[in-house]
């Protein structure tokens, strides 16, 4: 316990207050975005600091949710996130377990992995390989080129190495082969770690923007982040949301559409956030523990 002098107490209050301000600065943009997204044209034009909608108007959401482009892109992102994460977990877990077993040439394979953390061929050669492997304009281009994050692989291998040898050896003596040990002993024991890595990969896919800019030209295959950029950063909400206009005589004010689009795109992350926080902090700690 700290000794509580008067100066010490004052420090505590100031510190608590300062941190509250900092923490609220992380939350404030969302409160503002939320209230503008539900506001009417008149209230937006009033130029007041809107911290809560004065009249609740849901036009912006109706408009967005009737846009073919937005809905298509939403499902593209959901698809890439679900399938992509499954592919990530398959590739990462199998190789991580394989590398946790002793075999001749293990050091060479490990070096092959670690070297990619230090040196990468760069954008253009990778782009050419994606093109040559026939993935251009296919959603697999958002999945296969990032199938393994080398850092995750190394951390997961470390995790598998910490699973007691005896358990696996007992199974082998009972006649199980390596695949069976992996599937029936190792994976069930690693559920929390697997959940953490899945979340990590899922957030990566949900937030991915740049791969799509590189590899996807067909708007029907654009993920949500690409459309969000068009709506907000390029500042062309109506052009980006083609197919929605016919539903409404007067499109809602662009500000409200932009704010609603930001919120809708972030919503899944916000909903998952409590889990993310729990597992990610553990993941970071896992990663900082070295042999």
């Amino acid at each position, binding site marked *: 316990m700290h000794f509580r002098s008067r100066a010490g107490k004052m420090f505590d209050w100031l510190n608590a207050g300062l941190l509250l301000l900092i923490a609220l600065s992380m939350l404030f943009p969302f409160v503002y975005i939320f209230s503008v997204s539900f506001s009417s044209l008149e209230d937006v034009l009033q130029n007041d600091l809107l911290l809560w909608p004065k009249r609740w108007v849901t036009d912006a959401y109706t408009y967005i949710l009737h846009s073919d482009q937005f809905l298509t892109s939403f499902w593209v992102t959901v698809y890439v996130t679900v399938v992509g994460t499954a592919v990530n977990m398959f590739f990462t877990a199998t190789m991580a377990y394989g590398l946790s077993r002793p075999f001749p040439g293990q050091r060479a394979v490990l070096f092959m992995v670690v070297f990619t953390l230090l040196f990468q061929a760069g954008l253009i050669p990778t782009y050419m390989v994606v093109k040559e492997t026939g993935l251009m304009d296919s959603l697999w281009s958002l999945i296969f080129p990032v199938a393994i994050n080398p850092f995750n692989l190394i951390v997961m291998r470390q995790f598998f190495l910490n699973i007691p040898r005896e358990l696996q050896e007992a199974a082998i003596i009972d006649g199980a082969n390596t695949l069976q040990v992996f599937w029936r002993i190792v994976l069930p024991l690693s559920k929390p770690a697997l959940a953490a890595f899945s979340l990590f990969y899922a957030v990566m896919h949900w937030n991915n923007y740049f791969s799509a800019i590189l590899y996807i030209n067909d708007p029907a295959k654009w993920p949500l982040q690409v459309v969000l950029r068009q709506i*907000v950063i390029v500042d062309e909400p109506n052009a980006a949301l083609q197919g929605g206009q016919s539903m409404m005589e007067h499109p809602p004010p662009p500000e409200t559409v932009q704010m609603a689009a930001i919120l809708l795109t972030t919503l899944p992350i916000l909903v998952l956030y409590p889990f993310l926080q729990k597992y990610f902090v553990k993941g970071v700690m896992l990663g900082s523990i070295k042999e």
Partner: protein
Amino acid sequence: MEPVIKPEVKKPTVFRSVPRKKRKTRVDVGLVLLLLPGVLYFLVYKYLPMLGLVMSFQDYSPFLGFWKSPWVGWKHFETLFQDKESLRVIWNTLVISFYQILFAFPLPILLAILIHELRHQWYRRFIQSLVYLPHFLSWVVIVGIFVVFLRSDGLVNQLLGWFDIRPISFLTSPDWFQPLIVFQVIWKESGWGTIIILAALAGVNPGLYEAAVIDGANRWQQMWYITLPAIRNTIIILLILRLGTVMDTGFEQIFLMLNPFTMEVGNVLDTYVYYKGIQQGDVSFATAVGLFKGAVGLVLVVIANRTAKRFGQGGIY
């Protein structure tokens, strides 16, 4: 799949006398199957592109391919160090990295020390869960939020208007570009960066603080003589490793923030490769720029790791 344990099996199959030598050299098919997908991934998407680096010594033409495109030696690297535009790009990369290390690097440390000083566990957890949040948002969302707040009719300019300050064009002004990039990184990553520092602080023996109090140390003295020394090594390691990545300025963020008005101060190596290679089709030159960046990065990271290990800690590999 068959159950692993079959109680009805009575034959002691495992004890069948297999010559020791033979057992050792037998290939574990299961292990090979486990390793195969991952190894294939690394070969195709990480190592095959490295062969493509030969393009940086050619005038690559898609019609001629790797085998027939003419070799030009170091031409593209000479251009890289002579061309005014590319020198500007290298300069921008270093300047933005320098600002990041100067301003964005120390803040998580400061924030972690303040959080460490909080007395109530519940309040501490509350603050932590809020400051971690921006880390999980995409750069499109974060740049989007900044755009909405900072454009000419955005909230910030509205507030400035209350004080009779004329609207500032934050997003199209070269003066504001680099500060905004650094500020976004501070907002997004400062909270997240506290985790590793807080972990180091959790290892401090509380008895040290008690002893200091008995000796009459005030809060500042406790912070200066106990808290800071406890995380000094962690800070040094983090700084060294950060210095190893000065060539990486974060592609998505800068690409999303760039516009024709800010190109002069904001175009960095990563974005330059994209504009040159993908948009303008100067594949060979762009590959050379990428190779330059990668090679310098490799040397820096190796030096950084050697140095970090000398401080008695493991590096990143």
